[in-house]
């Protein structure tokens, strides 16, 4: 059952007060009883000692009548149940009153009187003094110690005085009843006051709770009115201020939301316009690039074709000097065509318009084809092209053409900067399951440490006079990096100037195919960690 705050407060308060009252009453009753018991003990001992003093003569003389008178005198005292005089040999000399069966000797000082006996018995010895001169006195000694007992005082009997405990018990009962009554009255008052107090506390809380419910239901104009000036009223005032602030905030929020929607709508419209303009510009650029490509490649192919034909003697015998000229024209045209191809490829990659053609293929033959191509190109045979493919590699399922272009570009690059020595292609399984690592190592001139961070930037040629020596516009490695990105991999490079370079490409073996109707993969540049 759920108990309200008021009930809990009343219960806790009442329990605490009842406990305190009970504890206080118990303590007072015990203290009172102990005090009374002490007084009773003092009185009993005082009476017993008085009787013992008075009985000395009567015990010595065997005056039972005087002892009886003493007992009667004691009996006149309140609470005295009996008085017995016994001589030192245990003979009862005088007795008045009966010793109840349930009696107890006086306990230790401060102890509570017993509750299960009818009388408290005080046993006081009766002494007499031997006033005869001691041997020393008889011999005329000057100093005789008479202060200590030292045989001058000896017991001649005992007086037993019994005090009734009934009055003490009656007093104890009265005190207990009074304490219990007091506790009950205080407890009832505590319960009533706790209920009133709890009501005084919970009533405004309930008002606040109802107001909070209305505010939660959207009635932000709700205000709480309490007819008090206490802490709860301060809470109500704060509550009202909060509600007002909440209403103002919601109005401001509504206004802000409305304004924001208008701004979003306007910006969306602008973005759509710009997007349309960008699409148009992109389309125009593609058309321009296609046109340029066509318009540039066609004459260059023609030039190269005819140059090849002239060099082969289709137009008549050519001299050696003429042949060299034709070879030069063909070579420059080829370079120009490669340059155009690079620019177009980079343009296509940069625009994200890349089509993925995923197919299954073995990596070894692909790389062997590249190696063989470069071996065939090499004239002097001063560079060894080596292919090292680890056994057990899985088949690749990715864009074969793009991966081939990556490796070809890297090998081209290595061959370009390696005059003699070795260009190696090493393939092994990657550290991650389902990945392969393709490393292209050369013993060329290497790359300086300060150039290494920039070698994958577009149009960046590193090394002094490189362009003049090797040709190109600095797009090869930029294209490689973007292709690796498209393949979902990453590329790193290590190089020591004068000793060679190593480009390491890590790509997943399997690139997921796109569902039908899904747009071609358009990886965002820089999406793959490097």
């Amino acid at each position, binding site marked *: 059952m759920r108990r309200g705050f008021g009930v809990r407060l009343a219960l806790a308060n009442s329990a605490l007060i009842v406990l305190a009252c009970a504890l206080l009453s118990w303590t007072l009753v015990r203290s009172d009883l102990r005090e009374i018991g002490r007084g009773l003990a003092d009185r009993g001992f005082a009476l017993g000692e008085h009787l013992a003093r008075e009985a000395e*003569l*009567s015990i*010595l*003389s*065997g*005056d039972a009548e005087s002892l009886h008178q003493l007992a009667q005198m004691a009996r006149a005292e309140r609470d005295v149940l009996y008085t017995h005089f016994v001589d030192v040999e245990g003979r009862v000399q005088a007795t008045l009153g009966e010793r109840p069966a349930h009696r107890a000797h006086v306990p230790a000082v401060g102890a509570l009187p017993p509750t299960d006996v009818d009388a408290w018995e005080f046993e006081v010895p009766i002494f*007499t003094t*031997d*006033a005869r*001169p001691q041997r020393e006195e008889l011999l005329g000694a000057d100093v005789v110690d008479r202060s200590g007992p030292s045989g001058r005082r000896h017991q001649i009997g005992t007086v037993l005085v019994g005090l009734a405990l009934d009055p003490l018990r009656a007093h104890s009962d009265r005190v207990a009843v009074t304490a219990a009554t007091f506790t009950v009255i205080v407890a009832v008052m505590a319960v009533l006051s706790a209920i009133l107090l709890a009501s005084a506390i919970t009533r405004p809380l309930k008002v606040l709770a109802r107001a909070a419910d209305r505010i939660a239901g959207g009635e932000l104009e709700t205000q709480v009115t309490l007819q008090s000036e206490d802490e709860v009223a301060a809470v109500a005032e704060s509550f009202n201020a909060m509600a007002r602030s909440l209403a103002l905030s919601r109005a401001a929020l509504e206004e802000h939301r409305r304004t924001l929607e208008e701004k979003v709508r306007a910006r969306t419209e602008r973005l759509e316009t710009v997007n349309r303009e960008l699409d148009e510009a992109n389309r125009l650029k593609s058309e321009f690039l296609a046109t340029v490509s066509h318009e540039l490649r066609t004459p260059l192919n023609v030039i190269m074709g005819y140059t090849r034909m002239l060099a082969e003697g289709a137009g008549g015998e050519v001299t050696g000097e003429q042949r060299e000229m034709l070879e030069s024209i063909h070579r420059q045209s080829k370079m120009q065509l490669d340059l155009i191809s690079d620019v177009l490829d980079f343009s296509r990659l940069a625009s994200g318009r890349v089509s993925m053609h995923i197919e299954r293929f073995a990596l070894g033959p692909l790389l062997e084809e590249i190696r063989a191509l470069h071996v065939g190109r090499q004239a002097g045979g001063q560079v060894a092209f080596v292919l090292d493919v680890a056994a057990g590699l899985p088949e690749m399922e990715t864009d074969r053409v793009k991966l081939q272009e990556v490796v070809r570009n890297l090998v081209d690059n290595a061959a370009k900067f390696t005059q003699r020595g070795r260009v190696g292609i090493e393939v092994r399984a990657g550290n991650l399951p389902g990945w392969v690592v393709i490393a292209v190592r050369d013993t060329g001139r290497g790359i300086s440490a300060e150039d290494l961070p920039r070698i994958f930037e577009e149009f960046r040629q590193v090394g002094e006079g490189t362009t003049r020596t090797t040709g190109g516009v600095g797009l090869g490695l930029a294209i490689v990096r973007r292709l690796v990105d498209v393949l979902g991999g990453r590329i790193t490079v290590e190089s020591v100037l004068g000793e060679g370079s190593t480009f390491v490409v890590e790509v997943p073996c399997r690139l997921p195919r796109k569902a039908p109707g899904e747009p071609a993969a358009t990886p965002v540049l820089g999406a793959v960690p490097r």
Partner: protein
Amino acid sequence: MRSDRPFPRVLALGLLAVLVSAAPLAASRGPTVAIVTSSRVGPFETASRAIADLLQQSPRQPEVLTFDLEGERSKGPDVLAELRRMNPDLIVTVGSLATAMILADSTQRTPLVFSMVLYPRQSEFLSNPTRAVTGVALDVPLEIQLQYVHRLVPGARRLGVLYHAGETGLIVEAARRIAPSQGLSLVTRAVEQPGNAVTALGELMEEVDVVWSVADSHVFTPQTTSALILAALRRRMPLIGLSTAHVKSGALATLYCDYEDVGRQTGELVVRILDGARAEDVPVAGPRKVSLGLNLRTAQHLGLDVAPALVAEAREVVR
């Protein structure tokens, strides 16, 4: 108990006595005897009743008026006034207080017979100039007393006594003279007031073997009696008391009179005087019966062996 209005009470008693005693004799108008008691303590009451009974049974059956001083000397004037008014033929006093009070009235000549009085001669009761005085004293002869001391404590040589010179000096001097005949020497300590009695006893006990008592109101009072007996017991000192009450309280022994017999003896003297004898011709008598009281418990405490003959002789024994 002390009364705030003594006279009406005394008067009422007197009138009651008159009504009770005089009615049968109203026709003959016999002699009138007034009995004045010092108080109504046991011995006085016993003696007083014995006197009255004997007079009632005597042939002359005198009218008996009874007055009680209740132990208060201050009641004397009222009683004397009433006696003057009643004018009895004879006054009987019971106790020293009543005797002294009546004898102090020198305006009357009514003969006086005292009873229950100790040492009447030493108290100068017998030398009254206006009245004829006789009576029965309580004095046990000193010789007898000292004999019993010797029998009770045969080894005792020094006998001590406390006394007030003005009250019992003559008695003590008489005892001093007699003591050697019993092989005793009397050692005395004078006491000026009761408050000094216990201290004086302590000093006395340093020098004696047994303590003897004389009826001296400066020594024995209700306040000092128990203290004196207790001091003697603590000292293991035999103390010869004055009464059986003393013996019950711890005194070793006492010689006491038969108070009823003393009363009857007094009544007989009154009858003789009423029959015509002159009071001044009737000698003062002593007690006819003397009894021994013994406290064997005290004797045991003292380590004293009391002779079996004495025990057999004793009329009252505390065992």
